[in-house]
């Protein structure tokens, strides 16, 4: 970013952005993506304008929260980390005792006015606490730091995995991992851990995974084996995407999507609708927009002036990437079916709010650099 100090050359948009402490590049990319997502949602819900209005309302709330987060000074964010983390853990434990069960998993906490998934908080709190912890330490991290950080990540991870919610567990786990990775965990440690994990894979398969998760991995290898369940999802999703061709069948014209061959078409499988209606060309454009957002986040991380900002912005951007990769990998049939939405586009409010607040944090990190300088 070149920072022009000449007020005359600063456009109005730019001035508004500065006043709100927003990063114009990132903010505009997010707006483009979400507006585009709402248009797609209209098609994916079978032209249900009410759902789109609900989604836009959530979007408005999420953006307000983004602006709010962007205006919290970075040192305050850093101080808040521990409380957010402890509060999140407490609520995760509360879910065990008071949580509401939905579709075989216990994830929701009902606080009277709002009902939400405490695991969402941990998507932010885990990278925050690990980044806050490591930013005081000498990098690259040593064994002690690795151990402490791992514990910080593993406590919420296990609590979430037992709900069971594999999708969120993966996102929380990777957020924590990315902070460590950026903080320079040595390659030999990464490689030996990877080897250890893969050697334990058969054990994990047997004891750590739920029956339905095992089934999903098996159906990835042989989708026909479960035609009523997740195998059906993959088969139909591939047909929809594939039949989209280079330019797609056009908005509202995807026969697979509109005839409801695609299950969960407005939530986890919304990319299938996109692929069918906008084709390969559209997919490339969409993924490039996503990549631009990720790059921008990483850029802000790289230009932060303190380790906390570098680590946090980097980890949040990379977690956003994991969202995208796991979801698109799932609908195109290269990864197993895991409940991860297409970020900022899938119908549903919880992940949208968390993601936007995350981008708010990234913008606060950017402001910290500017105002420090």
């Amino acid at each position, binding site marked *: 970013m070149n920072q022009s100090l000449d007020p005359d050359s600063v456009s109005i948009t730019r001035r508004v952005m500065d006043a709100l402490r927003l990063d114009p590049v990132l903010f505009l990319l997010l707006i483009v993506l979400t507006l585009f997502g709402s248009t797609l949602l209209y098609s994916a819900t079978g032209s249900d304008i009410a759902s789109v209005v609900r989604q836009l309302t959530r979007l408005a709330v999420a953006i307000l929260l983004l602006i709010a987060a962007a205006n919290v000074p970075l040192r305050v964010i850093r101080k808040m980390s521990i409380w957010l983390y402890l509060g999140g853990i407490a609520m995760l434990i509360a879910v065990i005792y008071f949580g509401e*069960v*939905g*579709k*075989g998993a216990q994830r929701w906490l009902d606080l009277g006015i709002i009902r939400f998934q405490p695991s969402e908080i941990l998507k932010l709190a885990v990278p925050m606490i690990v980044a806050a912890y490591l930013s005081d330490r*000498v*990098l*690259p991290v*040593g064994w*002690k730091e690795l151990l402490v950080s791992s514990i910080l990540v593993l406590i919420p991870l296990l609590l979430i995995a037992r709900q069971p919610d594999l999708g969120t567990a993966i996102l929380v786990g990777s957020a924590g991992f*990315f902070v460590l*990775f*950026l*903080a*320079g965990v040595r390659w030999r440690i990464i490689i030996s851990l990877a080897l250890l994990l893969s050697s334990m894979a058969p054990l994990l398969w047997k004891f750590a995974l739920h029956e339905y998760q095992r089934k999903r991995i098996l159906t990835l290898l042989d989708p026909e084996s479960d*035609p*009523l*369940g997740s195998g*059906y999802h993959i088969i*139909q999703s*591939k*047909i*929809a*995407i*594939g*039949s*989209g*061709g*280079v330019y797609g069948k056009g908005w509202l014209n995807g*026969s*697979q999507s509109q*005839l*409801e*061959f695609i299950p969960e078409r407005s939530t986890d499988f919304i990319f299938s609708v996109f*692929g069918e209606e906008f*084709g*390969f060309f559209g*997919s*490339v454009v969409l*993924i490039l927009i*996503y*990549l631009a957002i*990720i*790059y921008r986040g*990483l850029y802000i*991380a*790289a230009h932060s002036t303190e*380790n906390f900002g*570098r*680590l946090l912005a*980097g980890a949040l951007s*990379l977690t956003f*990437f994991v969202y*995208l*990769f796991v979801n*698109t*990998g799932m609908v*195109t*049939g*290269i990864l197993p079916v895991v409940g991860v939405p297409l970020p900022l586009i899938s119908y549903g409010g919880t992940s949208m709010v968390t993601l936007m607040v995350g981008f708010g944090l990234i913008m606060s990190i950017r402001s910290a650099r500017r105002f420090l300088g």
Partner: protein
Amino acid sequence: MSKREQLKDDYLENRLIRRRLGLSAIIATILLSLVLGRLYVLQVVDYEHFATLSDSNRIRIKALPPTRGLIFDRNGVVMANNLPAYRLEIVREQVDDLSATLQRLRRYVDYSEQDLKRFEQSSKRRRPFESIPLRFNLNDEEVARLAVNLHKFEGVEINARLTRNYPLGSHAVHALGYVGRIDAKDLGKVDEIDYAGTTHIGKLGLEKFYEDELHGTVGVQQVEVNAKGRTLRVLTESPPIQGNNLYLTIDSRLQMVAEQAFGDLRGAAVAIDPNNGEILALVSMPTFDPNLFVNGISFDAYNQLRDSSQRPLFNRALSGQYPPGSTVKPFYALAGLEANVTQKDKEVYCKGYYQLPGEPRRYRDWKKEGHGPMQISDAIIQSCDIYFYDLAYRMGIDRMSLFLAQFGFGVKTGIDSTGERSGLLPSREWKRRAEGLPWFPGETLITGIGQGALLTTPLQLANSIAAFASKGKRFRPRLVKSIEQVRDQTRTETSSEVVGQYQILKEINWTHIHNALVNVVHGPRGTARRISRGIKYRVAGKTGTSQVFEVAQDEEYDAETVSDKLRDHALFVSYAPAEKPRIAIAVIVENGGHGSTVAAPIARKIMDAYLLDQL
């Protein structure tokens, strides 16, 4: 560590993090290129293949709902089955103008706002080519009127579907429960695939408790559809598996006798086989017709049931909590003998009231002039309160409650149904927690005659007297005797389960109380002697009267002047034949007055019906 601390160098660290950030960007780009590559293969390379598949994507999976399992009584009498009932259904995609069609339909068949709302709700979950019910349970006249005019309505169908039916109507409804249409709340709790075609689900009682057994397994049909989604032909089909049948421990004949014995009275009765915990009859009066609920009861009918002062929807047998009154005395008596707090020949003089040492307050006997000198067995036979005030005073609340707990007071019995409540066994700790107050000695006294905070459900009371009859052995009461798998015709008996065993210290203590209970019915001064007229077997029983409101210190309780709702509850617990008990019964008649006159005769009728044709 301290050495490394000195080496903290922002320049080096920044370089490290930037290197890792750069690396991450590269990895992310590579992985997303992989996805793009995959998309390229799907959308460009294999486009023809998938385009063909998409065009011929005509194979749909249709769920076939299973038939719900039947419910029989212990002798094979049908208590719940499924009958074909006509439904008015609409296939949305075949209807040009839905709201106009709905308007025109009103001319031929009436449907409520509620029906319409439900129709719209299910429309959201179903595909446009699926038929969605608008009205359930069309009567013959409506079917005829519609059938004649059906040609005017494209996309409107009359379909016969199996619907839950309770042939006994309002009988045994509080044991059975009922099914109702699945609502949004139920949907979150069940397996979406398994309930894909199911419209009804157990809402209450056995129907709810045994939902998993009764529901069955969904079938799958692969059908070929045209481009608009209409079914052309069935390709493969795996039929649904019917739900399991339940055989109850209830004897429907006995159940009806028991219900009739109540007449217009309100109350509950539970009959249990003390040898295994099987529930022979479970009555809560008044009752209601569960068939009303199957296809959605109208607001008016529901409000009427809900607001009725008789409270027919309230399952008194499981959820009603009443002070047991004097029916609890046999347990305290046994406790007193076992703990040697009192002895068989110990005498207490009953002068009509009891006073705690140094307190002016008089705790009265139900008999104003008193019973005179009382031994424990007289005290039970004539239900003398003074003896039990004295016993309670000397035993103390802790020992009393501890003993009652061994007969299942204060905890749920664990019956296989819904809505059971636990009653209340008061203790010092309970009072401190609930009211933040210490326990007063006076409360011990009134607890000693089954009043005050002590509360029991009729089921609990029946199960406790059954446990007494079998000398301390307490079973989990059961409503289901066996479960039958329809496909292979196998019947699995549910097993009786002992949940508590009070070990009697001296058998003679038990026998002494038992004999006193027999004399309650058969003795010349027994409070229930009236029901022994013409009896062909021997009964052990205890009457009880529990106060609904407290009579002030210097007032008289006069049944005539007290309004109906405040009159005492009448209770009776019993088991028979006394020598070898086969049935244990608890009866409570709300605001019935005295246990001896109202509740005991009901128990007699139940015992007669059960024992006489088997003797």
